[in-house]
């Protein structure tokens, strides 16, 4: 974590010296740009517009922004109604409230009716930090992934986030996008183009392959480097679209090495790790190890300290691979 530039493995290109930005900041910027281009884009927030970064849109387009107050359930229903009136609503709050507090509204109103509502939540995972477990969303991907018709996206860095936001506005259907609070190192190459439902292969490894999403992509790339110095060839795949899963990319990883490791800032139950296990157990059984929060609640602490404490680091991935090979 931090401001250090990351070298990616894609043709040894540095991602253009891009700064580390929080994915929520990238969201705010993308939403503002969308607002200029698309009259039908409307935004709802539940009293957290400063934190979710929808405030920039609110200031620029006050007639298309609805602060719903602290009422997430009503926000989701209202967003559904706006979509029925032909608008493209983006509804934002913290991931814990968006997916937990309003899950039933997302199930009944948004998904069952297949509404064109974009749920973009920030403050996913334990890197929420000091606020502690009450605000740390570690099962949101599981909750959203279980809903029929829902698309689930966890971008890795700021550039990917901007591309995701631009892409989903042209997709007709419910989408959940999970963003983070802290700065995320730029990891995607400059010429990267997000393609919904498609993984990005940094490198295919012969000894093991790491399938990661969100901030864990950066850790996976670091882990690859650490293991390369020990003579191990470890691949890295960024899987921004957790649902629908890019089955082809997962199978490719499983066929090229005897170990697949998943890495996510989420519970090991129900998220990317589960999705990969579900696919591989049916299609190509290989050993899978899941790096993630091990069925525990979070706690207060600095984001970096928490990542260490829960093993969500490059070292955590390295140790998992070394003990599993």
């Amino acid at each position, binding site marked *: 974590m931090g401001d250090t530039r990351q070298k990616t493995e894609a043709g040894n290109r540095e991602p253009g010296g891009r700064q580390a930005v929080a994915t929520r900041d990238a969201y705010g910027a993308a939403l503002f740009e969308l607002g200029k281009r698309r009259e039908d884009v409307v935004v709802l927030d539940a009293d957290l517009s400063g934190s979710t970064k929808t405030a920039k849109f609110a200031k620029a387009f006050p*007639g298309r922004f609805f602060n*719903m107050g602290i009422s997430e*359930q*009503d926000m989701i*229903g209202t967003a559904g*109604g706006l979509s029925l*009136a032909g608008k493209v*609503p983006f509804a934002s709050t913290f991931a814990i409230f968006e997916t937990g507090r309003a899950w039933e509204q997302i199930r*009944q*109103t948004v998904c069952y009716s297949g509404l064109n509502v974009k749920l973009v939540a920030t403050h996913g995972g334990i890197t929420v930090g000091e606020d502690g477990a009450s605000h740390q969303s570690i099962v949101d991907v599981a909750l959203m992934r279980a809903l029929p018709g829902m698309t689930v996206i966890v971008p890795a860095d700021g550039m990917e986030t901007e591309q995701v936001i631009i892409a989903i506005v042209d997709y007709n259907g419910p989408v959940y996008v999970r963003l983070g609070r802290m700065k995320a190192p730029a990891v995607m190459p400059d010429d990267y183009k997000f393609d919904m439902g498609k993984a990005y292969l940094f490198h295919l490894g012969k000894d093991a392959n790491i399938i990661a999403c969100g901030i864990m992509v950066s850790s996976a790339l670091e882990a690859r480097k650490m293991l390369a110095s020990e003579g191990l060839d470890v691949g890295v795949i960024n899987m921004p679209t957790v649902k629908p899963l890019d089955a082809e990319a997962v199978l490719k990883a499983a066929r090229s090495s005897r170990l697949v490791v998943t890495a996510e800032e989420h519970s090991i139950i129900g998220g990317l790790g589960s999705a990969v296990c579900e696919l591989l157990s049916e299609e190509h059984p290989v050993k899978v190890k899941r790096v993630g929060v091990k069925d525990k609640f979070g706690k207060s602490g600095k984001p970096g300290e928490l990542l260490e404490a829960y093993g969500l680091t490059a070292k955590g991935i390295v140790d998992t691979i070394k003990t599993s090979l």
Partner: protein
Amino acid sequence: MSRPGAAISTDSLRQRAKEVRREIIKMLTEAGSGHTGGSLSAADLVTALFFYKMRHRPEDPDWRERDRFILSKGHAAPLLYAVLALSGYFDKDVLKTLRRIDSPLQGHPSSKTLKGVEISTGSLGQGLSIANGIALGLRMSGTGQRVYCLLGDGELQEGQVWEAAMTAAHYGIDNLCAIVDNNGLQIDGFCCDVMKIEPITEKWKAFGWHVIDIDGHDMDQIVSALDEAEGIKGKPSMIVARTVKGKGVSFFEGKAEYHGVAPSKEEREKALKELE
């Protein structure tokens, strides 16, 4: 038929409501399960909406300039299906398929399977938020459509309803008219015993709504309340309609037992006689 009610008399509306009740009884008996009491209690209200007040085109259900109806109390699906069929959205024969596998008439309304259903409902407390969103969106488009939303009185126990109540008043959503089917009963018994929700009128007034109290079975009062609501500017309107659960069939009236129970074949025959 853009505005069906332009010239319809309240006498004709009363006749229509009787027809609607007959279809409800027939389809529920055929299905063998479903919600009888709450479909009958709101029959006069919804008949007035579809045959008098709302601008809609059964032959063109997606007509952009239509008014919208949201059945927040989704368990009254048989009532919605009856008015849709009698309006001409689909053939009356389809009513016989209620609740069967692959029927467009799902146990609770599904917008995915049936044209004329604006949004899937059934899990209570969600319709008013949706109605707010539609009304806000239509208001932005400036085309003048109105949105109607029917809630149950028991449903008012859901917290989301009051979130939506605040939203409608806060944003001054005056192209919205909500109606409470205040039949006083819920599955486990009288609402006042299960979880007291009165005083309903004062609550909505306190939340900043224009509230109209009526007898929900008096067609003249229903029609004039709907007209009054349309003239209210700057705030949303709520019609609190006193109704009788199971209204129209003497042996269903005021009985919580018929909340979720369909009439037997004998009950059907007796009920249809009463509704002649």
